[in-house]
């Protein structure tokens, strides 16, 4: 019937127009494309130097931990394949369960988070999530949004203080969190780490909220813990998937970390 045909034509044109408009790059992407990865790396380096001057902020320097983090990082990077970022993972001494991504692929994880993880795979899940923020340029977008591109590029001391405050404190939006999780789950699978570790880690985190409320600060800005646990549990791995444990003496590493706290 011709009426039905007309109706389908209208629906199809609306769908086509919808699709075409989704392809238009947003102004956010335009702003981002102006900031080269190299510039972001530079900013990241300056920031790390700046942060280390803060007397309240103590990077952990421990060979055992460093090599463990390196092992985890290499496992993930190997699975990621190509990346424009030069990742570096920095452990810092803080009993709060905390991890965040700084510009240029610098990822900070707290000793509290390492203590909460029951195996290296769980730490890998958190790092994979932060890598998701980096790869999707969420970090630098947050900074551009809150500080402005031109100010960001001046890179003077006062700005750096503000930048580190913004990078370490304010939250990503829900869609960015979901995207970072999505990235992390796929990356874990590719790295032969069962994505379920994401669920087990965040479930433990949720369970401990009651007793360690104040330690949860940053992960509380990662909202909808239940939704992300559910997503991790429902993630379907490929039929050819096989998990390969990360060969690390986790007890020893945690002991190295807790030793520092004393």
């Amino acid at each position: 019937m011709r009426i039905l045909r007309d109706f389908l034509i209208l629906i199809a044109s609306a769908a086509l127009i919808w699709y075409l408009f989704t392809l238009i790059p947003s102004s956010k992407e335009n702003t981002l494309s102006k900031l080269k990865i190299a510039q972001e790396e530079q900013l990241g380096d300056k920031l790390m130097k700046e942060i280390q001057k803060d007397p309240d902020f103590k990077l952990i320097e421990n060979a055992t931990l460093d090599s463990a983090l390196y092992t985890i990082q290499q496992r993930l990077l190997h699975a990621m394949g190509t990346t424009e970022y030069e990742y570096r993972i920095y452990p810092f001494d803080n009993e709060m369960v905390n991890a965040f991504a700084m510009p240029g692929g610098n990822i900070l994880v707290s000793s509290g988070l390492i203590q909460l993880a029951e195996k290296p795979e769980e730490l890998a899940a958190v790092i994979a999530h932060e890598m998701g923020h980096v790869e999707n340029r969420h970090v630098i977008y947050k900074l551009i949004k809150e500080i402005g591109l031109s100010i960001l590029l001046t890179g003077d001391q006062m700005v750096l203080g503000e930048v580190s405050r913004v990078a370490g404190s304010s939250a990503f939006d829900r869609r960015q969190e979901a995207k970072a999780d999505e990235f992390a789950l796929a990356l874990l699978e590719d790295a032969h780490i069962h994505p379920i570790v994401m669920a087990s880690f965040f479930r433990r985190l949720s369970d401990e909220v009651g007793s360690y409320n104040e330690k949860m600060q940053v992960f509380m800005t990662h909202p909808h813990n239940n939704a992300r646990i559910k997503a991790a549990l429902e993630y379907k791995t490929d039929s050819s998937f096989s998990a390969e444990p990360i060969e690390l003496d986790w007890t020893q590493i945690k002991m190295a970390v807790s030793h520092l706290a004393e």
Partner: protein
Amino acid sequence: MNNDVSYHSLPQPNEVSLREREDAMGAYLMMFAALAAGLPLPIINLIAAIVYLYVNKSKSRFVYYHSLHSLYAQIPVTLFNAGLVIWGIRLFFTDLAITDNFKGYVGVVIVANLVYFIFSIIAAVKARKGLMYYFVLFGKIAYQQAYMVKNEDTQAPVNRPPKM
């Protein structure tokens, strides 16, 4: 499907009175005023269109057709606009980022309004000249509704034998 539907004959331009032409044209033009007034609440223009239809329904098939035509064409545009208002408010209050889907939707809304606007003007001009004009889909539906011969129009009571 019923194949023996018949339609009332269409009036030729010289058979349409000036009054009818103007009322038919009005069906399209008044929608613009209503659409503008209905912008914050896109349902208002639909109500206006329905009122216009009922006022003019009995005038002539020609006016009835154009009123229906304009009303039907407006329904999807109105729904799209209402959807945009609702989606926009949700974005504003829940600090969700503007997604690709939203961009696509805005595109559809803009194109739908533009197309509606352009074709309504064409239809208004045609109606003023005493001409029929058919939009895709809506033209056929409105024609069917305005010009199809309904049973009660033709069937005088007839005695038939029982079906054996």
